[in-house]
């Protein structure tokens, strides 16, 4: 593998039952870059994320994180590896029985022997980073959607990981909040030189944060490249993907109708 790549996926094939999800994925993520995995729904991007996290075993192929094969590690190695990575799930996955502060502290409490005050200060620092200072004592039920996402970000960063994974950071959020999260992701990378993998289907957000974009389609990688390269690509699927979005947003009833009826009904 290349010297400076922290994630190395080779010939990854995964199945759900008989259905093939990924058909030979090869991907490298370099140190300190933000890689955005994009694709429509059903393109296998979430499953790819689950493979990267070691939650779904592939049928064949390998995933190496920090130079270590994820699916050929024993439990102890896996624990070691996972302590160096942070994940923010789509729904936040905060634990409802704990306050925000306790949620953020949890990895520290389980993996370190720091005293409670130090942990509290560290949690506070991470929460300040995501503009949630002062929310430690709230319960997750008292937070808004954007605050939950930000708290999940803080929790994923608490161990100062080398690798960060964000699953759909802007899904279900208003444009302002999602723009704020984009800035936050950029700030995290700049502050800590973390390597970040983001799975999203939001074009704008991807173009804003990505160093490189990987486009998935029907279980294969269409292309991996910088924002400009993706925009300049003449691949039909990619252009479809870039252009289809505004079209589906402004759904034209008349055209759809005439499409169905074969132009027999003229526009009234």
């Amino acid at each position: 593998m290349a010297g400076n790549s922290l994630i190395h996926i080779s010939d990854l094939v995964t199945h759900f039952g008989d259905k093939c999800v990924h058909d030979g994925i090869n991907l490298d993520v370099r140190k300190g870059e933000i890689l955005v995995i994009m694709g429509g729904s059903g393109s296998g991007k979430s499953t790819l994320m689950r493979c990267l996290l070691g939650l779904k075993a592939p049928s064949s192929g390998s995933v190496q994180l920090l130079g270590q094969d994820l699916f050929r590690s024993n439990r102890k190695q896996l624990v070691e590896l996972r302590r160096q990575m942070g994940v923010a799930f789509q729904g936040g996955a905060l634990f409802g029985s704990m306050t925000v502060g306790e949620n953020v502290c949890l990895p520290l409490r389980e993996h370190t022997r720091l005293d409670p005050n130090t942990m509290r200060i560290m949690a506070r620092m991470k929460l300040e980073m995501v503009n949630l200072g002062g929310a430690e004592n709230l319960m997750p039920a008292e937070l808004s959607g954007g605050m939950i996402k930000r708290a999940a970000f803080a929790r994923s960063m608490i161990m100062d990981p080398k690798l960060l994974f964000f699953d759909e950071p802007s899904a279900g959020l208003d444009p302002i909040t999602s723009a704020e999260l984009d800035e936050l992701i950029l700030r995290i990378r700049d502050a800590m030189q973390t390597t970040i993998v983001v799975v999203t289907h939001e074009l704008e957000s991807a173009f804003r944060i990505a160093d490189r974009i990987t486009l998935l389609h029907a279980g294969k990688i269409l292309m991996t490249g910088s924002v400009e390269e993706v925009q300049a690509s003449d691949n039909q699927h990619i252009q479809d993907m870039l252009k289809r979005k505004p079209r589906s947003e402004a759904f034209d009833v008349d055209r759809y109708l005439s499409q169905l009826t074969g132009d027999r009904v003229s526009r009234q």
Partner: protein
Amino acid sequence: MFVVKWLGRLGDQFLYITEQIGRSAMLLFYALTGIAKPPYKLHLITRQILFIGARSLFVILVAGFFTGMVLALQFYNTLERFGSIDLLGSATALALVRELGPVMTALMVIGRAGSAMCAEIGIMRTSEQIDALECMAIDPYRYLIAPKIIAGIISVPLLTSVFDVIGILGGYVVGVVVFGLSSGAYFDSMYAGVEWNDIMMGLNKSLLFGLTITWVSTTMGFFLHYDRKGAYGAEGVSRITTNAVVLSSIAILFGDYLVGAVML
């Protein structure tokens, strides 16, 4: 064609059940080996004992008292016909200690805590919280399941003994206070009738039940995503919780018979 389809479905069902048994055995194994390793998670266990045990106390007190009263009422009626009312104390106590105490307590705990545990873990599964634990390198078996199983094994026998005592008290109220049996006769026949063996039997049952309830409920919730009908969201959690309650109740009643048959 019909036969082939039917056989296929039967095979599917068989495979699913076999897989589920395998998974639940794996879960118990991981949880128990997780407990054995230090550092011990005492605060998690105490929190679960508070939930399964202490918070069930009121329900157990009420249920136990009425069960004892009903028992004494029925026994009094029956024994009166044979002129052996003196045996009321021993009959009530034996029925409570050997059978009704453990079984009723287990059923109450299933309704109160088993269903809640299953739903809690099921929701943690659907909302990716269990995945999040894995990704934080926190063993979910050790962190989530093990404290519940330990707390079940500790709490259910204690609740059972409370149920027995309060049931005997309920029987006393009906036998002595309502029907005017002498207090001495009630307790005397109890001393004579109940043996150490009977108490051990009740204790063994309740230990087994404590394990069964927590094991079944946590398994059902934890492996929610393997459900054949594709458990998803609120509907999935509610269906799995119903299954967990039904399955653990049946397991309790069957286990009750099994322990009784072995120990008698």
